Each structure stands twice: as structure tokens, then as C-alpha cells.
């Protein structure tokens, strides 16, 4: 019984993490039709900046509670700097090319950013564990979890809700849906498509960095985390249906629970299980779970 509970809780925590990372990816794909491999590097950049900034904050004797702010600031900064540079500086010259060529372009950006991270931060791992333990623990039955996991869960729900709200209720969101539906027509109606792309990419980049920043306290931040994470995010986004927000949420939960179950019952099937689900979903529903609503996908 307690093992099933543990699978559920571990699964949900893992799902929250997956969702935060995957949602930026699916947003960018939905609007711009770019499957952004560089999302992995944005995640890594977020993690490194967060580790540095929070470390700096704590080492200078400020209240450790403020380190959460530092994590957040790091994510926003990375999004605001890297997003516009990549979109304005490179991607806007590539629009209209084949989807697969765009994947390769972002792969090139990924390679460049991977080394940039190594140049700036070196190859030694960074640790910033204080924020993870600071909030105390919560218990379910005889299982104890750090409260930080609740932060992760809360953030995932918040991000999902805010995005859904923006899309459904705000002017910007409706313009976004129009662009997704028909780019040329919306441009003809006076929507500044370039600006929508710019904002979307920056927001997506920020979400990727946020994923990294929130993960930094839980792992050792080292080279390779971007490559490791981006394939997981791919799995989630592809399972959910490229560009679908509810799809990403459902896929994150599915993958999270499956992986937690694998870790608890058959640990040797850990990674295997995730990609098995991915392959199975692609075989049964070639375009992912939520691909039916072509027009309204984001």
C-alpha cells in the first residue's frame, strides 16, 4: 500500500518537473513549429545561473529564504537575455524553412550553448542544496518528503493555469491562437506575427530556464544535464501531441507515474520505460494523444 502511495507521490513530483520543462517546448512548437533542441541548453543555463546566483546570495550572508528569489531571478534573466538573442539574432532568418532543418538549426544552437556553459562555468559540478532542505518536510503515512517538492508541484500547476488563462481570456492569447491557426491570415488582419513569435520564444526560453533553476537545488549541476533533459522533454511533448498544452500536462503525469512505478518495482527499467511509452504512443497515435484539435493547438 505504502509503495503504491510512494509511486503516486514520486510520480507526481516527477511529473511536475517534466511539465515545467516540457510546457515551454510545446508552446514554442505550437506557435512557431520549431522543435527547439536548444531548450535543453536553456534549462542548463537556468540551472547554472540559479546555482551561481543563489550561492552568491547565501555566501554573502543574506537570509537563506531569499535564495528562492534568487532562483526565480536567475530564470527570468536567462529567459530575457538568451531568448531574444536566439530569436532575433538567428531564428527569424530561418522561418519558412523545413521543420526538420529548423530542428537542426536549434541543434547547432544547442551545441554552441553547451560549450558556452562550459566556458563560463567550467566543467566542475556546482551544488546549491540549501533551498531544497530549508522548507522542512511533510509526511504521508510513513513516507517523508521535503516541502520543496510542493514548490515544484505548485509551480507546475501555476504555470499551466496561467498559460491556459492567457490563451483563453486575454487579447494577447487570442492573437496567439489566431497566429497558430493561420499565420498569413492573421498577419493580413494586422497582427504583428514577428512580435508574437518574439514574445513566445522569450516566454518559452524563460520556462526552460525556470525548469533548470528549480532543479538546481536537487541535483549536482554539471555538463550534460541539458542533453539528458531535452530528450525527456521531447518524450513528454511528443506523447502529448506536439504543441498541445493539455497534452503536455497529461503526458507529464503519464510519464511521471510510469517512471516512478518502474523505479519502485523494476529499477532496471527506469529510462527504458519512458521511451517505451513514447514509442507505444507514437505507434498507436502517430501524432500524440492530443492531436485531434489541430486548429486550437498550442
Amino acid at each position, binding site marked *: 500500500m505504502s509503495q503504491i502511495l510512494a509511486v503516486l507521490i514520486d510520480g507526481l513530483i516527477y511529473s511536475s518537473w517534466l511539465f515545467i520543462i516540457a510546457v515551454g517546448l510545446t508552446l514554442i512548437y505550437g506557435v512557431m513549429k520549431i*522543435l527547439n533542441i536548444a531548450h535543453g541548453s536553456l534549462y542548463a543555463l537556468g540551472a547554472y545561473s540559479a546555482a551561481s546566483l543563489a550561492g552568491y546570495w547565501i555566501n554573502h550572508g543574506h537570509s537563506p529564504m531569499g535564495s528562492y528569489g534568487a532562483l526565480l531571478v536567475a530564470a527570468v534573466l536567462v529567459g530575457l537575455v538568451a531568448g531574444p538573442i536566439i530569436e532575433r539574432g*538567428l531564428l527569424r*532568418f*530561418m522561418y519558412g524553412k*523545413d*521543420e*526538420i*532543418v529548423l*530542428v*537542426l*538549426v536549434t*541543434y*547547432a*544552437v*544547442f*551545441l*554552441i550553448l*553547451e*560549450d*558556452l556553459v*562550459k*566556458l563560463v562555468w567550467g*566543467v566542475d559540478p556546482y551544488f546549491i542544496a540549501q533551498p531544497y532542505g530549508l522548507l522542512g518536510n511533510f509526511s504521508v503515512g510513513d513516507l517523508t518528503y521535503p516541502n520543496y517538492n510542493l514548490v515544484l508541484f505548485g509551480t507546475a500547476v501555476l504555470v499551466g493555469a496561467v498559460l491556459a488563462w492567457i490563451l483563453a481570456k486575454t487579447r494577447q492569447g487570442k492573437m496567439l491562437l489566431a497566429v497558430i491557426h493561420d499565420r498569413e491570415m492573421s498577419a493580413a488582419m494586422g497582427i504583428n506575427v514577428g512580435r508574437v513569435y518574439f514574445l513566445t520564444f522569450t516566454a518559452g526560453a524563460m520556462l526552460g530556464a525556470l525548469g533548470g533553476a528549480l532543479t538546481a537545488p536537487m541535483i549536482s549541476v554539471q555538463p550534460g544535464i541539458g*542533453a539528458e533533459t531535452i*530528450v525527456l522533454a*521531447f*518524450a513528454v511533448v*511528443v506523447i502529448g501531441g*506536439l504543441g498541445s498544452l493539455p497534452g503536455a500536462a497529461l503526458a507529464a503525469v503519464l510519464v511521471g507515474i510510469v517512471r516512478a512505478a518502474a523505479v519502485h518495482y523494476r*529499477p*532496471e*527499467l*527506469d*529510462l*527504458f*520505460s*519512458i*521511451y*517505451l511509452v*513514447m*514509442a507505444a504512443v*507514437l*505507434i498507436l497515435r*502517430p*501524432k500524440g494523444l492530443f492531436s485531434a484539435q489541430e486548429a486550437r493547438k498550442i
Partner: protein
Amino acid sequence: MRRDRTPVILVAVAALLLATGPFLPRWAMFLVNVSLCYGIVVLGMMLLMRTGVVSFGHGLYYCLGAYAAGTLDQVYKVSDMAVMLVAAVIATAAVSAALGLLLRKYRDIFFAMLSLAFSMILYGLLVKTSALGSSDGFNIAAAKIAGIQVAGTAGERYVRYALTVLCALGSGAFMYRYLRSHMGRLAEAIRDNELRVEYMGASVRNVIHVNYVISAVLAGIGGALAAIAVGHIDPEMAYWTTSGEFVFVGILSGTGNILAPFLGAFIFETIRSFAYEYSPNTWQMALGITMLVVIMFLPGGLWSLFTRWRKAA
């Protein structure tokens, strides 16, 4: 119209490599050996790209070929290079024929993603298989070829090298003929307009399936040869970054000629080995920038430099 001199160049280069092999310094011999292995894999990527699909999971077959060869050595104590190669071909042909049944229905990004998923499944399995060394992999030692024991390490090195050169020659010659056959010519037609090919009565799915199997077998041969040359294999060979590199070198080389993949692979391996030596933390950046330059200014890959120059002349 100028006569196509590709077969002549192919045979001449192979003969040159075979003849000069014993006199090359060890590092140069290794470099040529490894780039040819890579070139064989990229030759298969080229065929897929000509067909209009890009696999982001060819590491699957590269790794499978290497592990088929390695398992023979490690588990069954068969350290005959010829047997290892045959095993790699059989394993990759069987797996790709089965997976091709699914993949033949997919295009574009979905083809890329499903093939990625398959390769990551193999990666996930191997990382946790302690009998095969988990994430560390294992060493292999191939000291025999077709039943004949090779004497001395220098002799062994040359035999490995010669085997790779001959395989590269064979794959290149095969591909040259294939691209001129009925099936081969359909490949580019599919990339240009799938629907019209169907109207003309050819089965697009069959062509994609066959080409997928061919490219998988080439990747398997490349993987087995690389395993024999390097003497060590690990699950990283199935990781998505390995597959990404194959796509990268395919784009860099261009799909215009069967020699392009070998040239591209040689340039890539040369840059890689020198960059590892002198600037291990910026070589990926150099690759990324090169890739962007090629995509923007040389959509036909490096090979298009030659054809351009020829047209101008």
C-alpha cells in the same frame, strides 16, 4: 556532359589507403580508420536524406552493430572480425526490417522522433544491463579474421584498417550502383513529391522501408568496425547525441555524391581529434557554428562546393 569519375576516384583512394596504410603513423592510421567507419554510417544517412526522411535515432544501429560484434567476443568468445561483421549485419537487418514496418508510415518530425524513441529504448536497456557492463560498456579484442590468427599488434592494426577500407569501398560501390537503380532513383523523387510517385505506381512506403534497412545495415557495419578499431564500446553509441552527430555530418557533407559522406566524416573526425587535443571545451561550439554556416550558405553541403566550381569551369 562530363563522365562521372566517382567509381575511379573511389577505387583509387581505396587502393592508395591500402598501400600507404603500413607506412602511416599510428595516429593517422587510426584517424583514417575511424573516419571511414563514420563515413559508412553517414553514407546510410545520406540515402535516407535523399529519400526525404531524417532519422534522429541511427545511433540505434550503430550501437547494435557494435554490441552484436562485442557480445560475440565477450560472451561467446568468438573474436573473429569476419564473424563479428556478419553478426552486425544480421542483427541490424532484422531489427530495422521490423521497426521499418512502423517507421515507413511516418514522415518529417514524427519519423525523427519515433526513431529517436527506439534508439533511446536501446540506450535505456544497455545502461541497466550489468552483464554487458552497464554504462561503462566493455572492451573487445578482435584478433582473428576468417579463421586466420593475425600475428603481432602492428599486423592486427593493419588488418583492422584494411578491413575498414575494404568495407568502405564495398559500401561506396554498392551505394553508387544502388542510387542508379530503379529503387535508388525513386528516393529523390519521393523527396521532391511523394504523391506523384504514388500516382506513377510505385510504393513510397516500400522504398522508404528498403532504404531504411540499407541505411541501418550500413550503420551496423560502421558500428562493428568502429568497435573493432577502438576496442571499446558503451551505450553512449545509442544516445541521441550520437545520432545527432550522424545527421550533422550528413548535412555537412551533402547528399550529392557517395564520396561526400567519407569526405565529411574525415573532416569531422580530424576536427574532433585535434579539437579534443587543443580545445576540448569549444569544439562543439565550432561544430555548431559550422552547421549554421552550412545550413545558411551551403544548403547542398560541402560537396556542392565541388559541383559549383565544376560548373563555373
